[in-house]
């Protein structure tokens, strides 16, 4: 079992209580059950993240989770780490401040597609461009869950939402392509069904130097699913099962997602380049030298 591999000794001891879920050590138990709907995928995404944390070997006192606003944005409130629930769209620049102020921290941004890509899109591309040292985990449920299921920048054309009653009439972003074009050094996409690979990807992202980006395709049965013939989380998982195709190393340009059809998954970018902090220390050297 994976938790055997747990590295933080503090955690192992905490974990001995038999009636306690092995992930509870990293959760704010007193806040469970969480607010997410039955069949919502955010909890699965969080599970994979927690698992990755338990395996990552980092000092968990130095791991910080930053979220924006949204259903996914509530993640920060459930992890038992230093965690920040910032303003809508601003998780990434907040994380930038944290990381640059204290480079010892491992900063993880965990938020939704609307938060990170709609209102927060500019910060995403600029942080990726600068290659700021952080991991961004984006739960893409194709809509704004928290506010009642509106159309968003990842909603597939034709999808019904509360503000696209005649079908979404916008082209969606292909997030891996956008992240890659902006400069991210690690870019992956998984569905909430492919939990082991997702966990592994998060682990890789956590260990990556620079800006890593993991998109998680996730069910929102209550809103997105309801209007688009996938009324349960299970139905959405089944769709991922039927249509999920793993294509590691594919040019992310080819990884568009439509209303039906394939969902391409995999690790698309995994490169090395100097990080913002690398450059900062160069500047420091120059200023004193």
């Amino acid at each position: 079992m994976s938790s055997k591999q747990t590295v933080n000794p503090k955690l192992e001891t905490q974990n001995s209580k038999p009636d306690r879920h092995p992930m509870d050590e990293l959760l704010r138990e007193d806040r469970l059950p969480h607010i997410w709907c039955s069949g919502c995928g955010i909890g699965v995404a969080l599970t994979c993240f927690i698992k990755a944390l338990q395996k990552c070997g980092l000092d968990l006192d130095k791991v910080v989770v930053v979220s924006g606003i949204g259903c996914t944005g509530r993640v920060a409130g459930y992890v038992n780490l230093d965690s920040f629930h910032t303003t809508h769209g601003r998780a990434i620049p907040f994380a930038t401040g944290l990381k640059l102020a204290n480079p010892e921290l491992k900063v993880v941004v965990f938020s939704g597609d609307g938060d990170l890509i709609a209102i927060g899109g500019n910060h995403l591309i600029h942080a990726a461009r600068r290659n700021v040292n952080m991991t961004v985990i984006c739960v893409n449920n194709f809509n704004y869950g928290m506010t009642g299921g509106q159309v968003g920048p990842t909603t597939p054309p034709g999808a019904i939402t509360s503000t696209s009653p005649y079908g979404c009439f916008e082209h969606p972003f292909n997030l891996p392509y956008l992240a890659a074009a902006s400069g991210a050094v690690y870019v992956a996409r998984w569905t909430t069904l492919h939990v082991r690979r997702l966990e592994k990807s998060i682990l890789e992202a956590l260990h990556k130097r620079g800006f890593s980006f993991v998109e998680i395709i996730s069910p929102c049965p209550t809103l997105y699913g309801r209007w688009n013939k996938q009324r349960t989380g299970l139905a959405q998982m089944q769709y991922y099962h039927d249509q999920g195709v793993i294509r590691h190393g594919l040019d992310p340009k080819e990884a568009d997602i439509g209303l039906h059809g394939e969902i391409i998954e995999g690790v698309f970018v995994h490169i090395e380049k100097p990080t913002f902090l690398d450059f900062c220390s160069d500047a420091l050297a120059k200023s004193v030298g």
Partner: protein
Amino acid sequence: MSRAEIRLTGFGGQGIILSGYIIGKAAAIHDKKQATFTQSYGPESRGGACSAQVIISDEPVSYPHLIDPSILVVMSQEAYNKYAPTLRDGGLLIVDEDLVETGDLAGDVRLLSVPATRLAEELGRKIVANIVMLGFLAAVTDVVSVEAMREAVRTSVPKGTEELNLRAFGKGYEYARAAD
């Protein structure tokens, strides 16, 4: 005062909010009274206790929140635990008997039980339990007229489901009458 205050509660997904809307609409549009309808949710995204409040009055409703609700309709245990204490002395408490365990009632309360969800299931659609409840409510109280309520049901439910819902309404109404 001619002010009637009604609270309907249950969990998200039971159609509680729609019920409140229908009562308000029945009063305001069809009975030509004044009605104010408000709603409240818990912190959960969906699910969890939710509540619909309707105030019906002959005069304009100034204070828009419940002050002293006289009717409380409850369709879940969680909601019962949370809201039962808000019912006023002498008030009417209606519960879905299969979903709510009332235990010992505190104070002077008139309790009516109705197997709304079960009756709805008999119609093949559990989802119309809220409308069964409305039929029952229309039968046992006079806050709105039965005709107004029926009309409001008809014009408020999703297109294509009118017939089913009116049957549900009738079922609740009949259940109450039969119990009389």
